[in-house]
């Protein structure tokens, strides 16, 4: 196997938030202290070595960075203050941009102004098309009672001018569908690209075909439970992460797949399963947001010490989406149709860019990459092909 060494690779990684890295003298403390390493899974040290040597091909074909959940123990005990945990974070950003075949992710990660511009552009597009297709009814201010149903709540689907409730939901659903197709198209093709780089491009890797099915459970299991994360020392972080992941997934499923059942005119009693799920998601997302906001500002927790612009972008967008979502609910229940309409508009202006930008191209994509990495890792192990591992092992 020919290995290409790129001495300039360090400069490239700097754009993804790399700090110290030449400090490392390869003592192996980080790998040994990590509660997740086993046998030949030698992160973070092997990743540092590959990065130091600029072995990009090997880096992209390794899933190690995704197997790390950044508990920070390696950084804490590193004898050289080389911060291996942060390097894993940087490599995850780098890998995200590598998996993305369009190059958009690379652009967003390395030039923050582009990400911001894209977000603003999409937000403006959402606002304009919403106002064009679903303009506000002139009666919103003059006759607000007309939009109140018998429970005293706002009929959310009747706020647009001259558009029936069913048509309103349908139009939103079309938008949802378009967004889902776009996002899924990019994300799935990126995952396939990852699959190609990790599994297919390694010619030495041979494992029985049935492994694809027998190992598939690990993908589902790890996605739902994030079991590996729980092995890290800090359980609070895992729980917060689990909450936000489930909350977010539930919300996403509700608004994309079940919009007709979810966004209805009548207001269900508080114990209705839809509302309970909504409350759970809200709690999960808010808990996580507060935890990370405090962490990233105080910087006492090692894993939140260095924040890349993309980290902030994600939690800020999620924050505004969550806040406007809660406001919609409050305004609806309090019977304020005009406020509901405009908050709904703003909510979409935050929600759509968050999903379109973050899910396939930026931080959110790890939701998919992490379980897939575990899956691919198990596939590689199923092959028990030592040779490829020996090749990955850097020379000392």
């Amino acid at each position, binding site marked *: 196997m020919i290995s290409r060494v790129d001495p300039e690779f360090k400069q490239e990684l700097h754009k993804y938030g790399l700090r110290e890295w030449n400090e490392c*003298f*390869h*003592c*192996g*403390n*980080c*790998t*040994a*202290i990590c509660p997740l*390493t*086993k*046998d*030949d*899974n*030698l992160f973070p*040290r092997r990743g540092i070595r590959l990065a130091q040597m600029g072995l990009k091909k090997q880096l992209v074909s390794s899933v190690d960075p995704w197997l790390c959940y950044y508990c920070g123990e390696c950084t804490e*005990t*590193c*004898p*050289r*203050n080389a911060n291996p945990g942060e390097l894993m974070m940087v490599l995850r950003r780098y890998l995200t941009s590598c998996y993305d075949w369009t190059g958009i992710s690379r652009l967003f990660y390395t030039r923050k102004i582009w990400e911001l511009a894209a977000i603003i552009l999409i937000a403006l597009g959402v606002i304009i098309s919403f106002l064009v297709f679903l303009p506000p009814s002139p009666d919103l201010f003059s006759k607000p009672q007309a939009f109140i149903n018998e429970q005293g709540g706002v009929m959310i689907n009747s706020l647009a001018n001259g558009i029936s409730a069913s048509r309103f939901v349908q139009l939103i659903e079309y938008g949802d569908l378009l967004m889902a197709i776009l996002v899924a198209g990019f994300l799935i093709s990126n995952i396939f690209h990852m699959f190609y780089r990790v599994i297919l491009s390694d010619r030495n890797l041979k494992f029985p075909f049935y492994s694809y099915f027998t190992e598939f459970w690990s993908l589902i299991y790890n996605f739902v439970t994030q079991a590996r994360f729980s092995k890290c020392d800090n359980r609070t972080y895992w729980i917060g992460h689990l909450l936000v992941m489930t909350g977010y997934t539930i919300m996403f499923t509700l608004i994309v797949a079940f919009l007709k059942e979810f966004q209805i005119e009548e207001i269900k009693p508080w114990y209705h399963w839809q509302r309970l799920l909504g409350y759970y998601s809200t709690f999960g997302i808010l808990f996580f947001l507060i935890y990370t906001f405090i962490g990233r500002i105080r910087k006492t927790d090692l894993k939140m010490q260095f924040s890349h612009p993309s980290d902030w972008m994600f939690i800020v967008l999620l924050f505004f989406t969550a806040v406007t979502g809660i406001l919609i609910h409050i305004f609806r229940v309090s019977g304020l149709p005009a406020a509901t309409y405009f908050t709904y508009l703003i909510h979409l202006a935050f929600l759509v860019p968050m999903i379109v930008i973050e899910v396939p191209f930026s931080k959110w994509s790890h939701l998919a990459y992490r379980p897939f990495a575990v899956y691919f890792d198990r596939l590689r192990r199923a092959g028990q092909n030592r040779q490829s*591992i*020996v090749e*990955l*092992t850097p020379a*000392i």
Partner: protein
Amino acid sequence: MSEYDRIGIIFCDPPSGYTPVDLSDLIIFVRDNLKIPVIIDQPRYLFSDFHVLMETIRHHRLTSVILAGIRPERFRQIVRTAMTKLGYQAESVVIADFGDTWCVYESQVQNVYELLERVHSQVVDKRHQSSHIQQDTIVIGAGIAGIQASLEIANAGLKVYLIEKSGTIGGHMAKFDKTFPTLDCAACILTPKMVEVGQHPLIELMTCSEVVAVNGTPGHYKVTVRQSPRWVDVKSCIGCGTCSEKCPVKVSSEFDEGTTMRKAIYMPFPQAVPNKYLIDGEACRFIQEGKCGVCVKVCPVTGCINLYEVPREIEIEAGNIIVANGFKPFQASRIDRFGYGKYPNVLTSLEFERLINAAGPTGGEITFRTTDKKGNSVFVNDSGKPQKIGIIHCVGSRDENFNPYCSKVCCMYSLKLAHLVREKLPSAEIFEYFIDMRAFGKGYEEFYCRIQDEGVRMIRGKTARVDQIDGHLHLRTEDIIAGRMLEQDMDMIILSIGLEPADDQKKLSDILGIDVDEYGWFKAVRYEIDPVRTNRPGIWIAGVCQGPKDIPDSVVQASAAAAGVLQSIMSDRLTDSEVFPLTYMIN
């Protein structure tokens, strides 16, 4: 000052880029106040023509030159050459550096006047100063470096006061079983030297003593030594040991690193020098509570044990001081993930050194550490033999969280310990976990290869943690060369602890007025070419107190320090650059 002994001042032209300054006020000041000749350099005049310079100096009949101006250092060499050619010492050229900014600020002018006065008076003083140097030497610390330095000087026929804090000389070396790489018995090399010190007529050994103050000037130090009571008279004690036998108090032994117990009245170890008993004031019941006094009753020599002895202060005059106060081993419990202090069979290298020593707690048998009925950790002979022993290198060294420096000796002593284990337990599996193997000295690399050949497994990778699981010590290491994670169960772990500056290092540096480096080791002014000289003339450093080093290096440095002392005494002066700095700056 004779008529022919003349000091002159040369004002140098400022370097290019500096505005020339009006010197007329300064010249008047020098003429009126200092009454010495003033030579003003013109650009490309004095220092560009060696002949002109020689002629100028000869014309003014100068025997000493003060080079003044902005960065006059540039011309030091040429003036020195001229002065030596004229038959004067190189040290007769003195720099008065005005600094970079004096011409910019009017307020600096007064400082320049002060500087010139200071330099002038120093130069004049130097001529009047008696150069006679006090011949006695004080050596602080009686480890191998202190012992070596004392013997070198005393054997040259000069008086040495050897000041030791503990009750015996010998230091850390006395605790070691073997030395690397020759595997000589440490005690066999050290004890003859210790005895020689103890019997030398020119060495005055002061145990239980500490330096508390240093006054006086280089060559004439007045050192105050505080001698804590031993409570046993060194002269009359016959070393029979009856007192120790009857003493009811038991505490853990410092010499055996806590692996054995000793009494409150004790001899540190059988070969101690002076080979006399002493009382541990903190443990003794009589001294703490006023009860007991058994030792006095059983002592066959009347008046030998005096439990009412008080500390006393002695003042010693000495020309030179050699500091050789050694080091402190790294405290392994500071790294809690290695479980030292938590798991009984995680040992420090020094503890293991005592364990494996024939004079140690088990007579040299390697056994497990267990807890006895009273709750003390002890090594007992019938507790079985460890079959898997791991040696973890770089504990507390090469670690930014503790000491970033390499402690230099750990790799080698770890190899030595591995060899000793191999000798005593031929069937045991021995593992060394290292980051880099630093076998740098003569015969060291060969020693490393020899230990490898003996079947000791070398694993490149820093052990991250040790946990006790089911009575085994479970450790996690990345085997970097094999490219896999190692999770092994060991019976015994040895932590190769690094070296740290001694606890009293900072205090000592304040008392002596010598510099320490960023880690707290004493600083040699120019380590590369003069590793024993400190910033204070007449104070020398030797051994580990200057930085981690092994026994041969410590001995070499001690001899070098002794050579410096002897040179100053034989020539009857400290080198000019010491008593008399050659560069002065504006304060």
